[in-house]
């Protein structure tokens, strides 16, 4: 950027923006750095308040404790099942749903769209939902968690809007070429909507990965708990353990470092997914297909 082309006011404005963005970035990044630093520090260093950015007295003791717990690995496995199974089922419902709602020839289109949007503003509430799940026999099951939260009105509307933006001539050309609705969706709309579908996939994955409350309410069986619920349970257990809490002064790991280690373990996979999805966030995928 050649700053010479900008007036003094513009330069000042640009600098202000950069400073603000910089501060914002730091404020979101710092908790991650701090948690990572704590997880690799000794319990003593943390409780005595020495850790700020870099780990002090580097040790893997907290990780050793976390990773040696078979329940942790089981929770990890469960979270993967809920996340990928749930995301898959969600996309299976959201994509065709959005396509149908985007078609002008859908009978009662306004009504159906309203019905979907309605669920964003009003829903039955916690107790009826729980009772409903109970009556359907979906308590304490993988399946219940996966299909119970598969349909998301916001994502359907987001994708529907994207589909509506695809020029009609694509659909018409495909129909002239002999494609039916499934083929139009599969061979034209989905490839053209990669950025939107990637966004929705990411939303689904993050929501599933972080899903905590309903998993806690609906699941009793310890073997089926996801990572977030397990995390809470460990924190609760450690807090209750008087001996552990009070004996941390010279210990290699402490309540804080173990918690931090579990947090790092639960954040890393979701951070790793983003770069893979990011490549679909390129704009201009429609470029060249139609002349506006």
């Amino acid at each position, binding site marked *: 950027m050649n700053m010479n082309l900008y007036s003094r006011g513009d330069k000042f404005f640009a600098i202000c923006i950069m400073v603000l963005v910089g501060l914002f970035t730091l404020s979101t990044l710092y908790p991650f750095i701090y948690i990572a630093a704590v997880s690799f520090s000794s319990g003593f260093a943390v409780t005595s308040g020495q850790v700020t950015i870099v780990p002090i007295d580097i040790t893997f003791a907290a990780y050793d404790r976390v990773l040696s717990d078979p329940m942790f690995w089981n929770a990890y496995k469960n979270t993967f099942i809920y996340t990928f199974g749930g995301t898959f089922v969600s996309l299976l419902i959201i994509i065709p749903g959005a396509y149908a709602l985007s078609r002008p020839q859908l009978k009662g289109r306004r009504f159906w769209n309203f019905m979907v949007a309605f669920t964003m503003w009003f829903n039955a509430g916690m107790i009826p939902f729980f009772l409903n799940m109970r009556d359907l026999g979906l308590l304490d099951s993988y399946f219940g968690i996966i299909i119970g939260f598969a349909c998301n009105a916001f994502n359907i509307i987001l994708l529907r809007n994207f589909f509506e933006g695809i020029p009609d*001539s694509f659909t018409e050309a495909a*129909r*002239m*070429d*002999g494609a039916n609705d499934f083929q139009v969706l599969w061979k034209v709309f989905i490839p*053209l909507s990669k950025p939107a579908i990637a966004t929705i996939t990411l939303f689904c994955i993050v929501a599933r990965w972080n899903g905590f409350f309903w998993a806690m309410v609906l699941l009793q069986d310890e073997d089926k708990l996801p990572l977030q619920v397990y995390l809470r349970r460990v924190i609760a257990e450690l807090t209750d353990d008087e001996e552990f809490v009070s004996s941390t002064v010279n210990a290699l790991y402490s309540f804080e470092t173990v918690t931090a280690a579990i947090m790092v373990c639960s954040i890393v996979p979701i951070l790793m997914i983003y770069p893979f999805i990011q490549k679909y966030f390129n704009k*201009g995928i429609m470029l060249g297909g*139609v*002349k506006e």
Partner: protein
Amino acid sequence: MSGVSLSKMTKRYGIVEVVRGIDLEIKPQEFVVLVGPSGCGKSTTLRMIAGLEEISDGTVKIGDRVINEVAPKDRDVAMVFQNYALYPHLSVFENIAFGLRIRKVDKKVITQSVNDVANTLGLTEYLERKPADLSGGQRQRVAMGRAIVRHPKIFLFDEPLSNLDAKLRTQMRAEIKRLHKRLKVTSIYVTHDQIEAMTLADRIVVMNDGRIEQIGTPMELFNNPVNTFVAGFIGSPPMNQLNAIVNDVDGRLVAKVGNSLITLPKIKALANSSNREVIVGIRPEHVLLQASATSSPIAIELELVETLGSEALLHTQIAKTPFVVKAETRFGDVSHLDKVTTLHIEPDLIKVFDADTGMALATAIQD
């Protein structure tokens, strides 16, 4: 090869009638151009033939088969869209092959057909490229390739050249004409550009306000427009139209335009019609700068001369009505045109229209 026949074909959106019961017979192998201003219903007509719009009334036949209720894919027609509608995520090869793949054609046959088409259209070296990496003309060619690869009975073109620049448009126009000569597939082409219509069509259908104004060969439309609308639409620049009053001067019919008298051709319908109001139509290229034995002079006010190279357009006024003349330059020199004050008009080249209905009064009778 099949023809297409439209009978009382109508399209209504609610109470608005966009296409008002048109009848049209298109012969096998014919190249028919639907032309008219925006909103005249020409694209809707094409889309009804394609099956992209439902037909409100009347019938469409391809060959002997009524196709009103037949799905677009089963009509055996192919369409080239104005905005190309190429799938941006597919290569040129896959774009052309799309329809064949949907129809589960054998892979070897697909490769062969696509290569043949690419060869015909000069696209062979671009087969692996994506549409975004092609120029406008190449994209348009891919769009045509996608249509011809299926060997349909009918080609439909919906203003395929209107997104191209002027030079490319001329070039692609010739290419479409060449392609039609070679493939001999019945083609229906929609455009608002009368030059495209004149150059491409075997027959032109002029549409206005959901109706057909006239059907004919380009020269029929040029020489004998049935009404003032067609006269004003076909030809570039279009036919000049002057309001006039018919007078009988010594047994010959003249039209009084302002203070000038123009001798009219002998037209039966004008016999004994002194003082009748008419519209006199004169093509810009039919005006003489020098008097001839039979021509009548008419005084003009010259406003401006536009030089086009070998010819020039004289923008003039006759009785406060704009009047355009196409004249030859002298090897680009227009100095002689700047001084023009009088034009000369041959009676035989004049068209006369009824002032109320705008309909042409029967063409000149030779005596």
